[in-house]
């Protein structure tokens, strides 16, 4: 059976096709301001027997494609467990949300998720990269060239942005500011992580796991962490696995 998972995030849409427990197709594309159109494009030529949606845009799929849905939390746990059957904790930093998930025999045992505040999420990184004039792809590698010499006091995205602007005006080195910013995000993420008493092995997934600096700093705090080759597709992969297991394939409407 060919099953598929689609993860509609705030920044990107991820699609994974699974056949006989092997990924044979995947795609990552920007969500844009017209997600439905993008979804249509992604699904156009794809063939599968069963599709499950996840991500914060999952209701779009439910409404428009009558598609079963699961939360990102369950999807990330399932996807991470597929790659690393001995993992116990998943840290997923996406565009809007940061989640820490504890796994027990492949199932979600407990989780933490940030509230509406964007500190410690991909959004924070994005705003800061832009303020410093970096492309988001280069932000981490450039930050690694700096020194962590500047204390950043603000956790709030809006305040941190003005703080960064005044640091630039003061003539501080861009790379130093960049590294210091990464440290401040890690501190924020770590409060959430430590509340969950993370257990080895820890998987770092989600878009922010592509940032080399974030990976290095997290390793310093937590020891060895595992980063999948394509950390962004773990949620979509999880959804595709859930579609295959056929467990509780039903829409929320049916669940009620």
């Amino acid at each position, binding site marked *: 059976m060919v099953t598929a998972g689609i993860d509609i995030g705030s920044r990107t849409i991820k699609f994974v096709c699974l056949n006989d427990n092997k990924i044979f197709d995947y795609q990552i594309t920007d969500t844009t301001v017209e997600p439905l159109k993008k979804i249509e494009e992604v699904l156009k030529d794809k063939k599968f027997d069963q599709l499950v949606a996840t991500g914060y845009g999952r209701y779009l799929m439910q409404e428009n494609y009558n598609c079963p849905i699961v939360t*990102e939390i369950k999807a990330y746990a399932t996807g991470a467990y597929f790659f690393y059957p001995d993992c116990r904790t998943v840290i997923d930093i996406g565009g809007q949300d940061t989640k820490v998930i504890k796994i027990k025999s492949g199932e979600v045992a407990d*989780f933490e998720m940030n*509230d509406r505040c964007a500190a410690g999420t991909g959004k924070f990184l994005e705003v800061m990269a832009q303020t410093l004039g970096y492309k988001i792809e280069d932000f981490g590698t450039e930050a690694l060239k700096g020194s962590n010499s500047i204390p950043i006091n603000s956790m709030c995205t809006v305040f941190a942005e003005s703080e960064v602007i005044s640091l630039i005006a003061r003539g501080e080195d861009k790379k130093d500011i960049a590294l210091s910013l990464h440290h401040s995000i890690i501190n924020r993420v770590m409060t959430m992580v430590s509340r969950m008493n993370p257990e080895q092995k820890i998987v770092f997934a989600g878009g922010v796991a592509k940032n080399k600096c974030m990976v290095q700093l997290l390793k310093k705090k937590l020891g060895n962490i595992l980063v999948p080759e394509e950390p962004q597709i773990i949620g979509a992969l999880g959804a595709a696995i859930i579609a295959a297991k056929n467990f509780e394939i*039903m829409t*929320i409407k049916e669940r009620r």
Partner: protein
Amino acid sequence: MSGNNYEKMWQELGLDVNLHNEVLNYINKCFQNTVGKQKNRPKTMEYFDSVLHESHGGRVAELIEEKSKGKKIVGFFCIYVPEEIIMALDLVPIALCGGTNFSVPYAEKMLPRDICPLVKSTLGLAFSKTCPYAPIKSLAVGETTCDAKKKVWDILAQKVNFHIMELPQKKNVIDANLWENEIHLFAENLEKLAEKKLNPSVLKEKIEIMNNKRKVLQRLAKLRLKEPTPISGLDTLVVMQAALNDEPVRFTKKVEELCDELEDRIKKGISPFSDKAKRIMVSGCPSVMGNWKIHSLIETSGGAVVVDETCTGVKYFKDLVDTKANDVDGLLGAIADRYLKLNCSCFTPNNDRLDMARNLAKEGNVKGVVQYILQYCHTYNIEAIRIEGALKQDNMPSLKIVTDYSEEDTAQLRTRIEAFLETLK
């Protein structure tokens, strides 16, 4: 909450009619998006919907009518205020609290932002000329539960005739004595307002009325626990919100009718949920009228709320007042005893509440507990740690949610609630 036929009344009450219309539209919209969207509701719910819809119209007209007959209106903000004493002096008790986001900005003009939305909403209503009860009440009664309320009373007291009851923070003999004394002081103050003395047989009669109301709500709570549950948690919440607003004898009769219908639904196996819905208990802050957010989120994400360990839930009706005594002092003592058992989070230590939460979760045969905390409500928020620990002793999973009345976090809350429900076996 409709009808232009009330516009004249609102004008005469000195309300800002345009702003008031906006409030009504806002509440209507919230209602339509939550309570109104439900399927397969009991027929009798129509009445309770109408109580909410008439709370700014027909109910106000009724109270104005009572007033014209010489009765005075007494507003209260918390379920620690004994309604039976108010009624026994021919005064009319009415709950004054805010469950909508609309009035929050008005309160923020004067209050610090980090105050719970319930207090902000209430104060905002009072000061934005949109609360029809503000002009008709003769006395408002506050109590010393949390700090936010305590200090807001001082502000409100500048505007209206105000009485504050001191609620102790512990439950030893000395505290119980203080509370009983407060009940007496309250009664004396009301006697002055009513210009008459408490009469033991009338007091007893009103206690019976309140006890009957509690009994019928207990019956409703029992029926709700049937598997599958015959009524949604959101609908039961609407009944509880109506309980604080409606005339008690009429209300009691209507809840009896609802219960009869529910018994019939149970026989026929009718439930608003599929059998896959997970049974949930909500614990924590009250959800007063206008606030349907969490129940709606849970029940549209695959859960069924079958117990509420809140002031708009079990706390309001779990204990009756003893009616053995035949004199005013004895009856006031019995009232004091009953009200001290409510287990608000402002008590220390509060082991009674922990036990209550554990027992209710067990009785309800729930799969998990959602702790609903209003932002900046420190007592409930901090006590959530101990509640979680107490529930863990029974391997009962719980999820703590801290939120306010706004809509901006609903996507995140939905994800968290759905994920929590997914983990429940």
